């Protein structure tokens, strides 16, 4: 069970899904209309006080003018941490949420205790990654997770509302990733993310190859875990394993 409340930040108001008790955990959601409170949130809430904000320009909202690149979101979430008085939370991000988490840690690593990155993106890949922006929406979902039903968002035969919601999320992603689906400065800045980091990927990831996750982990001096049977959005495909991983990672921080 969760509640939703709204916080006014200097950038814009933000909706935050909130539930559970325990140490604070900031959960940064993935793309394509996957921000809703889910089994993964519920499982985390058994051990943590979970704060799961909706990113600006996601969840049905049009891309805001002020959003230019990823660093805008790092500052946006720095303001959120301050506003909610979260004391060095664990940050968990998936896909684009993991990229945001990485940028947050690069700029403000003293404010966070550690990070778990599921299927992180944002790094330049030696091989071109699939261009989700030119693909039909059902195919986009198939690239992201095994557990998502692409047929629901087929514009011709599916639910027009749902299709528009996915498309609207993709629009904000386009603002951040259209020209480059990575940040060329990430390589030179990664060492500023001075906190314990774990990268976890599904072994059925269709968006980024394992070598990409390995490079990410190496760059951020992070451990790397592979989850069998999961696609790119690990917490959607295997919420139990993903939540267990977060728990065990947190225990290593407490030692």
């Amino acid at each position, binding site marked *: 069970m969760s509640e939703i409340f709204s916080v006014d930040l200097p950038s814009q108001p933000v909706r935050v899904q909130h539930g559970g008790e325990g140490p604070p955990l900031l959960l940064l959601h993935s793309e394509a209309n996957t921000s809703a409170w889910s089994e993964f949130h519920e499982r985390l809430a058994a051990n943590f006080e979970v704060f799961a904000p909706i990113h600006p320009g996601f969840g*049905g909202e049009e891309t805001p*003018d002020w959003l230019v690149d990823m660093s805008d979101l790092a500052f946006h979430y720095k303001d959120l941490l301050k506003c909610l008085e979260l004391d060095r939370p664990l940050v968990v991000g998936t896909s684009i949420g993991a990229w945001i988490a990485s940028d947050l840690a690069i700029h403000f690593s003293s404010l966070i205790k550690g990070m778990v990155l599921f299927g992180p993106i944002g790094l330049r890949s030696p091989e071109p990654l699939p261009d989700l922006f030119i693909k039909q929406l059902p195919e986009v979902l198939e690239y992201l997770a095994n557990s998502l039903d692409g047929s629901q968002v087929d514009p011709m035969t599916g639910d027009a509302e749902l299709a528009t919601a996915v498309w*609207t999320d993709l629009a904000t992603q386009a603002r951040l990733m259209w020209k480059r689906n990575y940040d060329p400065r990430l390589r030179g800045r990664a060492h500023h993310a001075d906190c314990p980091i774990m990268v976890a990927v599904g072994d059925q990831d269709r968006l980024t190859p394992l070598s990409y996750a390995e490079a990410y982990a190496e760059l951020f001096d992070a451990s790397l875990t592979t989850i069998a049977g999961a696609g790119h959005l690990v917490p959607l495909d295997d919420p139990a394993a993903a939540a267990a991983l977060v728990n065990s990672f947190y225990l290593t921080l407490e030692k």
Partner: protein
Amino acid sequence: MELFAFHLMPYPNIDPEVREKYSSAWVVYPNSEYDPVLGQSLYSEYLDQLAFADQIGFDAVVVNEHHQNAYGLMPSPNIMASALISRTQNAKIAILGNGIALRDNPLRVAEEVAMLDVMSGGRVLSGFVRGIGAEYHSMGLDPTRSRSRFFEAHDLIIKAWTEPGPFEWDGDNFQFRYVNVWPRPLQQPHPPIFVPSQGSSETLKWAAQHRYPLACTFVPMERLKQFYDRYRQYASEDFGYEAGPEKFGFTSIVYVHPDGEEAAAAEIEPHIKYFKERAFTLPLPTFFPPGYTAPESYKTRIEIARELANTGGPTLTAGEPLIGTPEQVGERLERNLAACGAGTLMAQFQVGDMPHGKVMRSMELFANEVMPYLSRDKVIS
């Protein structure tokens, strides 16, 4: 009425077996399929067709901008306009339009169109477009910035044409320390602006505000009426003027045949089929990439896509088909214009893979047996 000769300059040899492997003839259809030797003769024939339109008394010849596709071979409409200057005498050269949001430097458009206007002795009609979604894939441009870039590029170009330079421009998308465009256009204050539109409320209102004529491509009659009514409503209610027929133009395929409607239809049908199935097909994510419109407009697009799927694809004819004998075409043409209150027909004689001889025969018949009977009062000054 005004008669414009509309052309897409399509590539006529799209191999169905190759085409089958790709989702579209846009963006991803490989350019190894383009034969430049054939290309040379195509350009020559297509320019001849437009030059002929000038000779038979068309008010304007129309060129347009599309990138990386086999649908239309005019990535630079201004190069085509330049070629048409020396091949035409009287017709206006309507560039419908320059994709001003696609340029990293919109002043290049201000310069090029001013050059064309001066070189042609003031015969340029200057359309401005955002560019359809496919162009954003092809040009590597963030579609979420498209609307903002379009409006700012427009303001910059108009100011560059109308206010003395040098001046500084410091906008959200474009910044220039010195705006000082040489040459200036011949027509004062600037060449007439046209807005090719797919009918979004935002564009209709903006065009009505600036009193720019709408040029609609492949829009069925029912939607044309809606668009024009909305424009007329904005004009009278928000901007205090009555929008007359000079504000409205639309495309239709025209094919004239001496033996009547059935013979005409039988002859043009394969070319329409080629055009629709091989050249025109645009998957929704190519046509409307994420962020190209507001979410509400995307939902409308889904509705339109579903409608089109049920009705067999895009409408190339608005209203009664202009396919038939000279009498039929002439009468229907006037009825179609009257039905939506438009003053300009943009007639498309060449369709898909229609060969040169066929196009020219239809144009000749139109010239000899349709045009003399049309009421040709000028509606655009």
